[in-house]
């Protein structure tokens, strides 16, 4: 039982990172109907910005309490992520607004590869250690159950960011126009919404969350490299599809669900009789099953093609 709870906790903390990245996929899909393949690489850039930000603060000699350093670093990487996201949209995707979705998908693959290999050129291919932004200590005390401060912080802060996002989407004017745009771009334009601004904002917001996800992921695993975004990126996309692409609560649900499932499969690989190496295949298997049996995802609605 304890072991199960332990796996569950590990799964939820990993899942909340997936949820953060998945939100970006879902938001972009909502307004532009395409899969932003490069989203996982914004996640990577977020982690690297946090690392450089951290060392910059340490070297500057400023004395700050640890929590403030962590906050500054997180904010910094989210800002970098947001800027990068809007920049990518402006340069690579905006010229393709009226083109077939496949053209945009191929471009997105190009952008993804570009970020990875420029990253490799700049940061080097070898994994680097990621500084601990918050002191890592065990908060255990429930029998053999291990709760680390990092895990708890990741879950709590992710939860906070999700709430913040919900507030923006549900309560602000910009959020209203985002929802309107995803429901009907033509009608939104006819209400006076400047669609370019809303699309840029959506990219920025989604990318900021991905960058935050990168910081958390790096804090959990304490190592980063230019290709760290590839698998979490794809898994987060799968999480978005699982929850119903275009549906914000769906992305959060899908992320947590996927994190938990994946951790459980690894934790119980011996009992289930699957090698733990199949960890990464689990997500893809879920994707294939969901697309075949419930392509709209758990919380999504169906669209029909007009003939």
């Amino acid at each position: 039982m304890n072991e199960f709870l332990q796996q569950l906790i590990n799964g939820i903390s990993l899942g909340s990172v997936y949820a953060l990245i998945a939100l970006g996929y879902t938001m972009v899909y909502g307004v532009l109907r395409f899969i932003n393949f490069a989203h996982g690489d914004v996640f990577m850039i977020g982690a690297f910005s946090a690392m450089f930000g951290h060392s910059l603060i340490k070297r500057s000699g400023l004395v700050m309490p640890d929590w403030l350093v962590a906050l500054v670093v997180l904010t910094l990487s989210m800002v970098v992520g947001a800027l990068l996201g809007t920049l990518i949209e402006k340069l690579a995707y905006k010229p393709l607004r009226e083109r077939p979705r496949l053209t945009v998908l191929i471009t997105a693959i190009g952008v993804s590869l570009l970020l990875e290999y420029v990253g490799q050129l700049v940061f080097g291919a070898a994994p680097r250690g990621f500084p601990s932004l918050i002191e890592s200590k065990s908060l255990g005390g429930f029998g053999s159950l291990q709760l680390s401060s990092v895990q708890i912080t990741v879950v709590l802060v992710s939860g906070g960011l999700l709430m913040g996002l919900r507030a923006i989407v549900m309560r602000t004017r910009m959020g209203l126009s985002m929802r309107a745009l995803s429901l009907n771009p033509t009608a939104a334009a006819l209400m006076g919404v400047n669609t370019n601004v809303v699309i840029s904002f959506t990219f920025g917001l989604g990318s900021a969350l991905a960058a935050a996800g990168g910081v958390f992921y790096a804090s959990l695993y304490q190592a980063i490299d230019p290709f760290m975004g590839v698998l979490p990126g794809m898994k987060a996309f799968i999480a978005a599809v699982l929850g119903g692409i275009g549906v914000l609560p769906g992305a959060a649900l899908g992320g947590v669900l996927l994190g938990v499932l994946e951790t459980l499969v690894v934790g119980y690989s011996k009992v289930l009789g699957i090698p733990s190496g199949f960890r990464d295949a689990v997500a893809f298997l879920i994707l294939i099953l969901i697309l075949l049996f419930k392509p709209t995802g758990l919380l999504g609605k169906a669209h029909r093609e007009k003939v």
Partner: protein
Amino acid sequence: MKSKISLLIAVLFFGWLSFCFSGHREASWPLPQFDGYLLSILILIGINIVSAVSLNLVNGHTGQFSLGHAGFMAVGAYGSAWITLIHGKEILSLMGVFVSMPAECLFLIALLFGGLFAAVTGLIVGIPSLRLRGDYLAIVTLGFGEIIRVILQNSDALGGARGLAGIASYTTLGWTFGVAALAIYVVGTLVNSTYGRGFLAVRDDEIAAEAMGINTTKYKVVAFAVGAFFSGLAGGLYAHFIGYINPEGFNFLKSVDVVVIVILGGMGSTAGVTVAAVVLTLLNELLRQTEQYRMIVFALLLIVLMILRPQGLIADFGRLLPWRRRA
């Protein structure tokens, strides 16, 4: 009619090449002797032609964007290596009595086995995923490709993550360009028939194609199976050229390599894709010293191409040929 002439010329040319090299790794008359490096580049060009032309049938002609091509190559590579490496001696001893060229026959059996196994995998992947379209299909095929890789990584009988080493070097220029000629011929003739125009119809408008009596599912599955068969052959050629294969060599990036060739050549243009395979293999070699720049160049190429010239750089290559020019 004119496109048939250029197809015939291409097939004859590759057939002649393969004749020149039959049975040997070195060239025979009337071609000069190649040194090992040039030879290996030529073989790589041939393998890339096979895999790009076959992927083009799926992604270009039929419009079903697949990102799992490397998975089928892996199946072909492992399948054929499994025959030659693990069952090679038994089969050879069986054949030795009956045929004069046992090694070639063994390789043929291995290639066919790899290709057919890949085709079957293609069917298994294709039948369920072809209900999906566009970017969803791309992601699901990517997922299947990754699953194939993970399965290989975890199967001890095939060397797990270490892969298989010591595969016999059966691949010659003759074999490579023979298979390339076959791939170009099959894909070329296929889409140049009333039956084969169905592939293009499926790409242009699925609903109209169904309404005109075309079983779109069947067409997509056939495209997938034929594409997988030839990529399996490409994988087999590759395995018996390099001599060593591991699952990591058939990851997502390998699929992207082939996709780049198809896009550069122009989706749906066999001639363009063949030329692109040559150009990009050479470019690859030029950039080999500066490996870290290679993918950056490819990535930029993809982005710029999609924005400025989504139909591909060489799509209209065929029209430049003098006998295909129209008034």
